[in-house]
């Protein structure tokens, strides 16, 4: 009965590869997010979708492409992986409304070698 689930939990890959991280929420939320946590634990928003529509797109390289097939899913595809992409990526969801708390997945630790 996991609320926000991400797969895989760990991802190790080589530079130049393309990889995807999947996210699903069963909370009935309309808004989903991707956050990146770097090696210093700093969390930064990357993207936000509301009911499959992109509403926040931070200054992220266009090698990162989110895809939302429906409002319960938000996947992150990364092309041509670089060493600097190594981080923990968190998916989150919330109800519509600025003050609605975010519910986070357990994160995906991506290591690019």
């Amino acid at each position, binding site marked *: 009965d996991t609320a926000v689930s991400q797969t895989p939990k760990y991802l190790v890959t080589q530079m130049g590869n393309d990889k995807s991280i999947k996210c699903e929420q069963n909370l009935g939320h309309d808004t989903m997010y991707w956050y990146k946590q770097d090696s*210093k634990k*700093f969390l930064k928003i990357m993207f936000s979708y509301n009911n499959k529509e992109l509403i926040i797109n931070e200054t992220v390289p266009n090698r990162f492409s989110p895809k939302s097939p429906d409002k319960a899913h938000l996947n992150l595809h990364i092309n041509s992986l670089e060493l600097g992409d190594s981080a923990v990526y968190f998916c989150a969801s919330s109800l519509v409304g*600025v003050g609605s708390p975010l519910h986070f997945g357990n994160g995906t630790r991506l290591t690019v070698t």
Partner: protein
Amino acid sequence: AQTVTQSQPEMSVQEAETVTLSCTYDTSENNYYLFWYKQPPSRQMILVIRQEAYKQQNATENRFSVNFQKAAKSFSLKISDSQLGDTAMYFCASVSSNTGKLIFGQGTTLQVKP
């Protein structure tokens, strides 16, 4: 610009004691919300407490309470009767109605010692 600052990278407290984690923020908005999230070693991000800026009353959740000083743009978290399970990294965060982005501070690592 919306910013959140946590000036204490690390803190420690003895079990059963009280500890306060500091947070200051900056925003030009009137309508915003503040949060504290906890990230234990398991990596899970867990909501601790939420404060609405238009409410003067400080939010409380069991052993967790905040001291919200709107004029000073300060939002500290007080943990009473600290427990070993409170050992985690704590993040202060804010979101304004203008941007809709939840912005996090740098985090404070809290160690509860037996």
